[in-house]
Structure formats: C-alpha cells, structure tokens
C-alpha cells in the first residue's frame, strides 16, 4: 500500500497541507488549537519516514541475497512528477519558424524526488525532531498572540526541509535551500516587535545570501560543465572531468553555500544572533535540521568532492577551524542559548572535518554525528527552553543556580544531553565522536600526517573544550546555591507535560541511538548503499585495525574525563578559582578574545558593513544632491510656465470673451492669408 513513491510524496505534502490549513484557518477557526494540524501532520510524516527507511532496508537485504548483483551498487528510487522547466535546445524561431540550435543543450528541470539511504536518514531525523519540537511548542508557545503563525511557519519549514533533502537536482535543491532560509528568517524574527529579533533575522538572511551567491554560481558552473543539473547525471559524468579545475571551483563555490547555511567560519556570525527566535525554533532549525543542510549538501556532492581533493582539504580545514573557534568562544559566554549556538557551530565543524576526510568512514561518521547531534542538541535546546520558560525568560547562567530540585525532569534530561554531547561512554555522542576521531586518525595514518594529523589533534583539543563548556553552564544552572531571578516570581516550577515528554523522548534517543546504530553496524552499512557513495566504496580506506579503534576510544574517553573534571572542579566549588583562571588567561588576551567572540562582528562591521554603508551614503548623497536637484529643477519648469500663465485665469468673464475674440481673429486671419 505504501510504496516508496507514495511515501516520498506524502512526507513533504502532509506538513505543507497542514501549514496551509493553519495559515488559512488559524486566525478564525483554530486559534488555540492551531497546533493540531501541524503536529498531526508531522507525526504522520515521521511514521512515513520510518516506513521509508524500512522499505529501503528491505531492498538492501533483497540486494544482498540476490546472487549476481554487485554488493556496492546503490539503492535509489526517483519520483518525477512533472516537468518544471523545459527549454529544448532546438527551438523553432517564433517569427519565421526556422529551427535554431544554439547549442546549450536541453534545459530540462523536473520536479523529481529521490529516495536513497542518505535521504531516508535525513528525512527520518528531520521529521522525528520536528514532530517532537512541535509537541514541545504546544506548551512553550501557549498564549502567544502569534500561536497559529508559529505553527504555520513550522509546517512550511518542515515541508521545505523534507523537499530539500529529497530533491533530485541542484535547482530544486537550491529552491528549497532558499525556502528554508526564508522560514529561518521568519522564525528568527518571529517576535518582530523586538528590534533585536528583527535585526537578527535580517543578519541571518543577509549572511545566508553571501553563501547562496556562491551556491548559485556553483550551480551555473555545474550547468556549463556537465550540461545537466540532475544529481545522477552530474555524478555519473564527473569521472570524465577528474582533475579539471572547474570541478574544484564548483566544489569551492558549493562549499561557500554550505558555509553560509551551516554557519561555518567565516560565515558563522549569524547563528548566535539567531537565538533571538523562540527556543523551539532554535532547537529545530538552528541546531538540528536546517543548519545541517550544508553538511547534507556536501555529503550529497561526495562524487564531486572526491574528484577534487584540494576542495576536500578546504572542507576539512574550514571544519577544523570552525570546530575550535566555536568551542573557544563557547567557553566564556554567559547566555545559555548562545553557548549552545556556539556549540552547534563547533559540532557542525566536526561534521565538516569528517566529510573533508573524503573516506566512506569519514562521511558516514559525519552523517552519524549529524544524527546524534540532532538528538542531543535538540534536547539541550529544549531543556534550555524549559529553564527559560520557568525562569520568566531569563537565560543568563550567572543569574540562575541550583534548579536541580525545582525542575527534576529538566535536570535529568539536560544531564543526559550533556553527557551525550560530551561523549561519555556509552551515550550517543561517544559513538559518533569516536567515529569522527577514528576517520581522522585513519586518514592521518594513511598519508603520514601533515594536514590531517593537525586536524586530529585539533579535534582532540576540541573534545576537552566541549566537555568543559557544556558542563560549565550545567553546573552553574542546576547545581550550587539556589538562585532564582525575580522575573520568575516565586513559583519557579517544572514545565508542563507537553514540554517534558519530548525532553524524555529525546533524552532516551540521546542515550541509546548511538549505541544501537554502532552495535548493529546498521547505520554505516545502510548509508553505504547511497549511490553517491559508490565512488568511495571502491577506494578502500576502511581497513582499520581493532587496536586503532581501542586506542582512539581510550584517548577520547580520557580527554572527556579531563574536561568534565575540570569543569566540575572549577564550577562546583567557589567562584574564586574561575576568576583567577580568567585573569591568568587574560594576560595573553585569551579571555577577552573568547568573550568577545574573536571580534568577528566588529571586524565585519569595520571591513564589510562600514565600507558598504559609506558607499551607500555616498550614492544617497549623490542621488539627493545631483539627481534629485536636477529632477527638481526640471520640475520647476512647468511650475514657472504655470506661474507665467496663471494671471490669465483671473475669473473675469470679459477677459475670457476677449481671449476668444482674439482666437477667432487669428483663425480668420490665417484663413484669409
């Protein structure tokens, strides 16, 4: 009954229908029940995604049992519903009917969706997280005047995101890439009455535009190079262009787009500001789903990147720099949501590093981390939202403390999230982090060091920092002396069931999902049947000894313990040690550097925004002084003419009669001539 094609269409169609219904009926009919259509649709979508995963799994098993078929051949199914753009190469001329062949090839874009393991995994993750977040939002957004608007946006976002991950060509991918950007803008600026929210929305939109320009240029270059925009077509013919500079250029341009969307250095500045949006939005869009679109896109374009190793190095370096940068900044921030935002940036950097290794191990590790990260980061954001909800909107960790007893569910789930993100055995974060470290170790071992050796060490340093910066707010907020901000009133209490239930589910997921996937070896196996990854399977980097595995796991666990212990030592005791350490670090300016977020915003303001503004002001001045005054002067001509002729309209009947007489005289004179 539910074959792959139907499911593939159902998954985006349900949220879209729900969003439209909510938008149409929200103000009048639904009001406080605006969540009903969207939540229902998302749950159904999630069910459909799970079914899709099982369908694909069945096919893979069939493939394995069938003798004669190659093990590594991908499993995919493409649904092409209708042709969107169809410009044939040979066109009869509209006037004389001559057939001309300009030679640019048939430009044919179909609205086609694809189902392969990569897409299925992404779909399942997106719909799962969004369903949970939508349920959470029922409690969190209750009573907001824009209640229906929120759910309409969320429905639209899930539609766009599911279409993004199931699109089968670059143009469709780009369209929904933009659409999720729009949803992100709308949801960041959801409380548009607040200037900070409106400004943050604008900033996110503009910074994303920079990346999107790169993405668009990359698509143009793909068209001119390969003559098609279909994933299948491009990836098949990429082998003929190996070593071509254009492939490298395409990859770098696509990377710019991915950097914008996934908040990678140097385009990461929009993500912390995006925390102005409602917390469920931060959890859904700016932690779990939309920001991973860049990772997904790079993973999807693996054949292209595999053909351009230089671009792959750039991916890895960008990821490494971002991972370290985000971790360092996160250490000193005081806003819980911003800490989580920088943590997201850092973890996205990890994923990029993994993708940059260019091995199947690395890419599956990156995707694995994407999934586990989605769980524990959504959990942490929703937990932060729960704290914020209870504390009357206060999110500054210096003003909170000892909430452990007041909010037990939030406390335990947040702890699960922290342990998971820190990579404590055997929680989800451990397995995915371990996989990334292993892939880097593998790569550095293979090529004897250099770049990947440095990256390996960088990520190891990052592991310590992650543990430290995650447990610092945890200890400050939930342990220690009880500090309750006055905004919370005297009734700080646990959040309602609709909010804690998703927390529990996510906490469960954060704990077990990694172990399940790792022990069954299902994830990497399932993902390796993605057709895009065929080119990697043949390169055979995956031979890693058991000793290596144990060594990497041990190193990771030790570093984790070090980080957690440091945080506990500093923040469970008195604050004196912290202050002393901060002073010590500040001798080299490190503390200020971290607290000031490496001064990216002032630097961008000085070197990008200010020059542009100056040019704009100059242009405005020129427009005002030169062009406007010219126009004004031209406008004065009829005015002067009018002033000259105005005395003729003096209202005297006889003047008009006399004018008529002169007119008749002139006419008669002309006739007599």
């Amino acid at each position: 009954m539910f074959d792959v094609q139907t499911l593939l269409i159902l998954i985006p169609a349900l949220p879209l229908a729900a969003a439209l219904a909510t938008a149409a009926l929200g103000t009048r009919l639904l009001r406080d029940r605006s969540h009903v259509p969207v939540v229902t649709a998302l749950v159904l979508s999630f069910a459909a995604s799970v079914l899709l995963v099982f369908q694909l799994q069945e096919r893979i098993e069939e493939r394995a049992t069938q003798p004669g078929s190659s093990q590594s051949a991908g499993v995919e199914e493409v649904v092409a519903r209708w042709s969107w753009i169809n410009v044939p190469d040979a066109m009869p001329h509209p006037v004389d009917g001559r057939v001309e062949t300009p030679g640019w090839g048939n430009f044919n874009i179909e609205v086609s969706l694809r189902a392969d393991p990569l897409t299925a995994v992404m779909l399942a993750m997106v719909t799962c997280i969004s369903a949970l977040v939508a349920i959470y939002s029922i409690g969190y957004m209750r009573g907001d005047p824009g209640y229906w608007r929120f759910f309409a946006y969320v429905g639209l976002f899930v539609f766009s995101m599911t279409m993004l991950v199931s699109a089968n060509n670059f143009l469709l991918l780009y369209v929904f890439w933009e659409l999720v950007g729009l949803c992100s803008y709308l949801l960041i600026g959801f409380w548009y009455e607040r200037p900070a929210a409106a400004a943050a929305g604008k900033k996110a939109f503009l910074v994303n535009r920079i990346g999107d320009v790169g993405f668009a240029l990359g698509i143009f270059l793909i068209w001119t190079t390969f003559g098609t925009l279909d994933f299948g077509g491009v990836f098949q013919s990429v082998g003929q262009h190996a070593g071509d500079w254009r492939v490298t250029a395409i990859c770098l341009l696509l990377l710019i787009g991915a950097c914008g969307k996934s908040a990678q250095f140097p385009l990461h500045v929009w993500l912390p500001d995006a925390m102005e949006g409602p917390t469920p939005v931060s959890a859904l869009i700016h932690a779990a789903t939309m920001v991973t679109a860049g990772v997904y896109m790079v993973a999807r374009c693996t054949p292209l990147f595999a053909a351009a190793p230089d671009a792959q190095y750039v991916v890895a370096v960008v990821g490494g720099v971002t991972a370290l940068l985000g971790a360092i900044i996160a250490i000193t921030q005081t806003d819980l949501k911003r800490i989580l935002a920088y943590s997201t940036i850092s973890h996205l950097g990890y994923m990029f590093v993994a993708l940059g290794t260019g091995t199947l191990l690395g890419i599956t590790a990156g995707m694995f981390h994407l999934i586990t990260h989605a769980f524990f980061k959504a959990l942490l954001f929703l937990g932060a939202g729960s704290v914020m909800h209870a504390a009357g909107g206060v999110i500054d960790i210096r003003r909170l403390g000892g909430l452990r007893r007041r909010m037990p569910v939030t406390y335990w789930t947040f702890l699960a999230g922290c342990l998971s993100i820190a990579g404590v055995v055997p929680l989800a974060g451990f397995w995915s982090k371990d996989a990334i470290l292993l892939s880097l170790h593998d790569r550095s071992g293979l090529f004897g060091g250099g770049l990947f050796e440095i990256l390996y060490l960088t990520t190891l340093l990052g592991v310590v920092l992650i543990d430290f910066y995650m447990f610092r707010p945890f200890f400050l907020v939930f342990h220690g002396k009880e500090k309750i901000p006055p905004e919370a009133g005297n009734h700080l209490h646990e959040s309602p069931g609709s909010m804690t239930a998703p927390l529990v589910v996510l906490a469960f997921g954060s704990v077990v999902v990694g172990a399940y996937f790792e022990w069954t070896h299902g994830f990497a196996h399932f993902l390796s049947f993605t057709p895009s990854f065929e080119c990697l399977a043949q390169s055979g980097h995956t031979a890693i000894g058991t000793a290596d595995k144990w060594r990497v796991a041990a190193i990771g666990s030790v570093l984790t313990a070090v980080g957690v212990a440091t945080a506990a030592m500093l923040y469970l005791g008195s604050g004196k040690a912290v202050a002393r350490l901060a002073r010590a670090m500040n001798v080299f300016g490190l503390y200020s550097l971290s607290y000031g977020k490496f001064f990216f915003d002032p630097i961008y303001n000085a070197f990008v925004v200010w020059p542009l503004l100056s040019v704009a002001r100059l242009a405005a001045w020129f427009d005002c002084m030169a062009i406007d005054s010219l126009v004004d002067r031209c406008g004065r001509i009829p005015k002067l003419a009018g002033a000259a002729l105005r005395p003729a309209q003096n209202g005297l009947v006889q003047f008009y009669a006399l004018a008529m007489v002169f007119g008749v005289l002139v006419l008669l004179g002309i006739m007599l001539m």
Partner: protein
Amino acid sequence: MPDPRHILTLAVLLGAVGLWLMLPRGGARGRAVGAVLGIVALGLWFSQFHGLGQWTADGMFFVLAAIAVVAAVGAVTSRNPVYCAIWFGLSLLGTAGLLLLVGAQFLAVATVLVYAGAILVMFLFVLMVAQPEGKASCDRMSWEAGVSAAAGIAMVGVLSVAIGGILSPSCPAMPPIAPPTQEELAAGVLDPHQVARLGDELFGRRLIAVEVAGTLLLAALVGAAVIVNQFSGRRHDGQQRTV
C-alpha cells in the same frame, strides 16, 4: 481712386479710436470727438458699398443701415443702461427695416414684436427693479475699452475683407453660384404669399425643429421660474424683494 483696402484700413482705425473715445472711461472727455470720428469712419466704410442700383432703394438702405449701426453704437456706449435699452430698440427698428428691404416681411414684424415688444420691455423692467437709481459705478467704467474696441473693429475689418474676397468673382475658394434672377425670386422668397410659404416651410420641412424650439421655450420658462424661486429665498440682505 485710392485703394479700397487703404480706405477700409483708415475706416477701421478711425472707428476704433472713435469707439474708444465714446466708451465710458470714468471721467474722461472726448465723446463728441469720438462720435465725429465714428461718423467719418462710417462714411468711409459706406463708400465701399456697392449700392442696390436704384436711388430710392439705395437711400432706404443707407438710412436704415446708418440707423441700425449708429443706434447699436449708442446702445453700447451709453452710460445709462436705460438709454442703452432705448438705443437698442432703435437699432432693432433699423434692423427690421433692413429685413423688410431684403424681402423678409415676416421676420421684420417678428423682430419688432418679439424683441422690441417683449424682450426689450423685460430688460427695462429688470433694470427698473434692479437699478432704479440710474447709473452705477460699473456703468461709468468700461473694462479695457481700448483693447476691446480695437478687437471688435478689427473683427469688422477682417469680416469685411473676407466678405469682399468671397463675393469677388475671382474667389478661388467657392464655386461660382449663379445669382437668382428677378423671376426666380418672385417665384421664391419674394412670392407675394411669402408668409404662407414660410409657414409651409416651417411646419412642413422643419416641423421637428419647430417642435424642439417650442420645447426649449417651455424648458426655459420652467428654468427661469425655478432659478428665481430657488435663489430668492437665500438673499444675503434678508429683504424679501419680489420680482
């Protein structure tokens, strides 16, 4: 024999100056000079007429034309509106005589009856109601007397030139029309029963136009009554003045 154009130009100039002098211009003098100039101009202008061929008819024509034109000038230049009306009546009589001379008997009678008998009396009546004290300041002062006199007389000059040009045998603009002979006229507009013929014409060929004109008269009657009744109640001075 001087060039007729020069004579015409001289007549126009003299007429313009004369009329300017005659028009009311505040306390300025010179009406008599203006009258003399006007009569000279009229004479010069008449000298360019062709005449009707018979001295009796010529005499009749020039006397009647002089009456009509001079009385019209008087009507236009008098300071006292009542005199204006009386001069206008005289001009009407001259016009009626000219109409008789051209052979339109019924029109001559109708003009005298309708204009002199009805419209003129109505004017005088309104004048008496509105301005029984005689001259007002607006009657003592013309508006741009010089310019309007020049424009009006220039109009006469241009029309004269145009008429001369059209009726000259060498006019290229018009196809030559054979003038009617006396016999044709006697069978046409100069028929002894011409009033009956005119009646036939009006109530035969032009019946619809006559009906429309009658409707127009009715509408004007109703309109005049409505206008007076509508506004008479809203006078600013509050006096109830019935017409």
